[in-house]
């Protein structure tokens, strides 16, 4: 296989468990995930599948305990995140990775003005920013608000979040996230809390900014249509497993994993055609997850092997050397890759 470029973010074999009263929740189960420089990656899955846990693990903001990381590796810019010192972590969260959250109302502090919050973020983003004086900070903050197309930024700096509409708040959050000029921007359901016409504006703005600035970008969402519009490559997650990854176009024209297929089928279409039954059953209990494929209990194609063994990842040939990977026994032979990990990581 062709030597890969070193990814900006590289997660290998990561498991995350939560120790709770009555047992251990095995949430993330040996997931692999990477983002290349300048790449826009989508992470799709339904409520409780581990999308947000994955991102919190990257940023090392999961409370431990109850969370624990029994195995796995996270590298950001080649550096192991889990052995970083507190100072390195702070710098990574400032300059390296920024995050936009679902609910801008909860993400902004209600008792500080937009300006106070924005300048604080900029000041702590990097060691050299700490030497900026107040007017320089204010200038940087104004610039951040201008780039997210907010009218009258001067007045906005002195406003409290409650004085802004939901769409404006999310724009402020985007401006704040980009004000530190991060290498990687993570957006966790950035439009879900907004009305559809406002969501459209905010997402288009986000898309334009990411394109202009060339950030790497992770978009987490449960809305498939948004991923289709905004990303280059998509990971599909189910119950703490990465079940499929493919270039966006390919995933939407040719979904392979039964879960991905079921999910796409379940979305009602504007063209009509009725409502599909959806996927029967429900997400497994993380306390006692099935020992085989975690989707096997709901899968219309389940075979005996599925409930015994965890499916390995199969590489499916694409038209132009596109890598399409799916964790499902249906794609065993002739594409079987006996040791997927060895292939990803030439030693």
């Amino acid at each position: 296989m062709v030597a890969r470029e070193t990814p900006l973010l590289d997660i290998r074999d990561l498991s995350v468990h939560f120790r709770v009263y009555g047992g251990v929740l095995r949430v993330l189960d040996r997931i692999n995930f990477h983002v290349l420089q300048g790449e826009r990656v989508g992470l799709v899955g339904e409520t409780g599948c581990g999308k947000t846990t994955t991102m919190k693990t990257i940023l090392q903001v999961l409370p431990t305990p109850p969370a624990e990381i029994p195995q796995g590796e996270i590298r950001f810019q080649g550096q192991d995140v889990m052995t970083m010192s507190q100072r390195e972590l702070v710098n990574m969260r400032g300059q390296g990775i920024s995050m936009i959250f679902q609910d801008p109302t909860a993400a902004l502090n209600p008792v500080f003005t937009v300006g106070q919050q924005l300048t604080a973020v900029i000041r702590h983003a990097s060691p050299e920013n700490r030497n900026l004086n107040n007017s320089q900070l204010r200038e940087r903050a104004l610039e951040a608000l201008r780039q997210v197309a907010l009218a009258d930024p001067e007045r906005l700096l002195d406003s409290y979040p409650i004085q802004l509409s939901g769409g404006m708040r999310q724009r402020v959050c985007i401006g704040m996230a980009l004000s530190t000029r991060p290498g990687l921007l993570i957006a966790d359901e950035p439009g879900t809390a907004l009305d559809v016409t406002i969501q459209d504006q905010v997402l288009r703005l986000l898309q334009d900014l990411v394109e202009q600035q060339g950030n790497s970008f992770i978009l987490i969402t449960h809305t498939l249509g948004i991923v289709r519009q905004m990303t280059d490559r998509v990971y599909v997650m189910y119950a703490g497993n990465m079940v499929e990854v493919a270039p966006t176009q390919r995933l939407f024209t040719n979904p392979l994993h039964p879960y991905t297929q079921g999910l796409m089928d379940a979305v009602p279409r504007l063209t009509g055609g009725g409502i599909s039954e959806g996927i029967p059953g429900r997400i497994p209990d993380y306390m006692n997850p099935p020992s085989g494929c975690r989707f096997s209990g709901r899968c219309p194609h389940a075979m005996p092997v599925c409930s015994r063994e965890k499916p390995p990842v199969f590489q499916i040939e694409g038209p132009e050397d596109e890598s399409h990977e799916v964790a499902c026994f249906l794609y065993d032979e002739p594409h079987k890759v006996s040791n997927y990990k060895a292939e990803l990581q030439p030693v």
Partner: protein
Amino acid sequence: MSDDIILRVENLRKHFIVGRKGLIKREPITVKAVDGVSFNVRRGETFGIVGESGSGKSTIAYITMGMYLPTSGTITFNDRDLFGHGDRRPLDLRKEVQIVFQDPGSSLNPRRTIRQILELPLSIHQPEKDRLTEIIRLLELVDLPPEFMHKYPRQLSGGERQIVAIARALATNPSLVILDEPTSALDVSVQGKVLNLLIRLQRELNLTYMFITHDLSVMRNLASRVAIMYLGRVAEVAEAVHFFESPQHPYTQMLLSSIPVLTEAEEALRPAQIRSTGEIPSPVDLPSGCSFHTRCPQVMDHCRHIDPLMVPIDVTGSDHIVRCHLFEQANGQVSS
């Protein structure tokens, strides 16, 4: 014709006083949540109401349920005035109109078993029947096993909880069921099961639905007619198919152009010439004239001053009503 219409809403207004301004006069600050809405719901159909938050769609549902009294205007159900008795609606009228709320997590009492939850409407509305057999019948009707009656809501999944809420709404044998965003809190893989159940129940029990949602893709597949609301007013009413294939009001077009879609075929349906701009104005401080004029790409001078009327248009050969000056002119009836 009249017996075809189960619910007739005429010039409905609901204004909420949210505060007072001025030192001496203390003039009320009002939110015009619903401001002059008229529509008819036909027997046996699924009438969809679409709108963004603050458009007044849930307020209409709550007024119809009797949770609020309207500020003015009337709603008649089978030609009976729903508010003829003030806020004490007679039981026989109450049982006819039931509602399913958005979030079953908060609409079901966590300290009651499913049996107790289903028993309450039965004890009020059908005291003569045997409740246990009725509860079993209700659970069967919605495809839940009878053992579920001993469970608590927290022991059920989100989809199952919503199905219990549907069973509760059906306990009184209603003829009109208001569905207020019944699947918005559910994952898409579960949503289908609930929606298909609703479709089957409608067929089997001859129900009429007033279906409220912000999800246009769901609306396309479920509703027979759709009304679109913007800031307390109806912008457009049309049959679902026409609504999606030839949207007329600029706001409808903007809304359709904003939906994220999965296929090329769907993309072709989205109006490409229009893009979402501007903020939704505050309902406390509505713009003069047409309330959409601040965001409308085709705004004309008189849109800023004169409120448009609802006019029927003949683009699709069926009932299609639009509230927009663009169409008033075409029909030669400019309002004064």
